[in-house]
């Protein structure tokens, strides 16, 4: 902020000098840069190197060029199934979980008063609990013999609908998706709720005066005003679908038969269970590329719509 007045010029010179002090800037920024390089940037580069080797974790790595990547992209059906599972999960997030979150965000807002805070908190409770607890709990719920789900089905007289929720290869992915959709409900609700709270109530009042019903208000006012929030939430959902690891690891570890495999879990398994450290790193590199590409793509897709 340069000032044209002559007696302020002295002030500006001092400010300029202090604000441009190279040593201060360096000392302010260095800790973050060091942490960033050592914990994030350097490891990714190292991953790229190891991805081009065959390495069991012991002994010396053998350089094999792009062989791992060729294997992954063209001969590894588990890699592609992981991407497919992530796409399926993302689809379920956006088309099943989010509409429910939106409806309940509207309902929580409508309840108002003390109950609003109560319901808001109640719906969010699963999200403050560690994934370790949540996933372990669901393993018990899905237990075919004494688990909550099969017990409930028996109690309702639907004993024939009982399943081996995590053991059945065709059922397993849906069991995993159910847990993830259930778990993410609170977050989605909170974000949409924040969006709804940001809409000017005068719009609704004006609409009510014109005789609009609740449903009409929702589709003509709420939804359009929520477009930026929906965009953020959908992006978060799809990226989070790609990044799933902990829940899958604890529920099925990718099984049975790699049917519920996700990229992050797959790379972990390859490195620490199969001792194919080089291959695991190759998956890591592709994983980073997929995540970044998805982020950029989603931002582009939504930007175009907003600018129209």
């Amino acid at each position, binding site marked *: 902020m340069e000032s044209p007045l002559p007696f302020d010029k002295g002030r500006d010179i001092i400010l300029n000098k202090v604000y441009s002090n190279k040593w201060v*800037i360096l000392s302010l920024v260095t800790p973050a840069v060091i942490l960033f390089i050592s914990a994030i940037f350097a490891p990714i580069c190292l*991953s790229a190197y190891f991805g081009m080797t065959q390495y069991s974790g012991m002994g010396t790595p053998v350089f094999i060029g792009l062989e791992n990547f060729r294997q992954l992209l063209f001969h590894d059906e588990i890699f592609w199934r992981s991407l497919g599972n992530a796409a399926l999960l993302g689809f379920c997030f956006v088309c099943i979980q989010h509409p429910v979150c939106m409806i309940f965000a509207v309902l929580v807002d409508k309840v108002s008063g003390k109950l609003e805070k109560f319901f808001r908190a109640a719906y969010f409770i699963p999200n403050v609990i560690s994934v*370790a607890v949540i996933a372990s709990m669901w393993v018990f719920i899905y237990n075919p013999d004494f688990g909550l789900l099969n017990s409930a089905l028996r*109690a309702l007289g639907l004993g024939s609908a009982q399943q081996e929720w995590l053991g059945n290869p065709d059922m397993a992915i849906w069991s995993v998706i159910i847990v993830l959709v259930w778990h993410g409900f609170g977050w989605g609700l909170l974000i949409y709720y924040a969006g709804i709270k940001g809409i000017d109530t005068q719009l609704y009042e004006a609409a009510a005066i014109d005789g609009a019903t609740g449903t009409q208000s929702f589709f003509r006012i709420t939804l359009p005003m929520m477009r930026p929030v929906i965009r953020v939430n959908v992006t978060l959902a799809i990226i989070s679908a790609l990044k799933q690891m902990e829940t899958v690891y604890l529920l099925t570890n990718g099984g049975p038969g790699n049917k519920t495999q996700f990229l992050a879990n797959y790379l972990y398994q390859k490195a620490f269970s199969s001792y194919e450290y080089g291959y695991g790193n190759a998956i890591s590199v592709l*994983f980073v590329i997929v995540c970044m590409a998805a982020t950029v793509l989603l931002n582009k897709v939504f930007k175009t719509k907003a600018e129209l």
Partner: protein
Amino acid sequence: MNFAGSNTKSRRITRGLLIAFMSVIAFVELFPLIWLVDFSLAKSGDLFASNILIAPNPPQWQNYYTAFVDGKVLHFLFNSITVNTITVIATILISLMVAYACTRMKWKLNRTVMNILLLGMMIPIHATLLPNFLIYNKVGMVDSIFALLVPYIAFSLPQGIFIMASFLESVPRALEESALIDGCGVYRIIFKIVLPITKPSIVTIAIMTFLNNWNEFVMAMTYLTSDKWRTLPFSVLQFQGQYASNYAVQFAVMALTAFPALIVYILLNEQITKGIVVGAVKG
């Protein structure tokens, strides 16, 4: 969203139905947790009796005692508190320093550095697990507290910097500038003047960092090889081997592990919700 023109009685009935519906859904959503706590107070064999819920008579409180002692809950809890406190404080301080440098200081690279650091938000954590494990192994950092602190802080920084920078850009510089003219050094300005002003965003960063790292366990699982620095989620993970068939005690461990975060959430509900809303909507 109140609608003019509907009579009071029908409005009350509608509201009553609304509350009933939402309560049912809340009950269904939270039922797994209720089931967990219910059977944590039962005898392990009761689980096979195929009731959905039972009233344990008498409630087996010793399950919790066993879980607490053999699950090493106190030790893991202490580690969690230590690691998280250091992470939150370090994240706040470093975020403040970088955000100040990028929004206030005049240098050519300030936009570039900011963008690169924010790029960190796009990188998935699990992609760094493999190489970091090797690095920490070579450097002898495996199984130390730094194996957790370094990645936790590093991954919390992009979000922290973003929140702090957004906030700083909306704060007027008048106070700092007059202090600078009076000969105050930049560091004193940051910690004596700017820090108190940025309290709201500090609270947001603290909450987001805490939520992201308290329940984290994959990095802890990979970088720690002994119980020395293992964090609270391990109470659940470790426990399964020894008491594999005593399900009630396992349930008790899970309830105990979930308890601290739940208490913090119930006590600080308002701040946490506000913090998430600010952090999420801005991100």
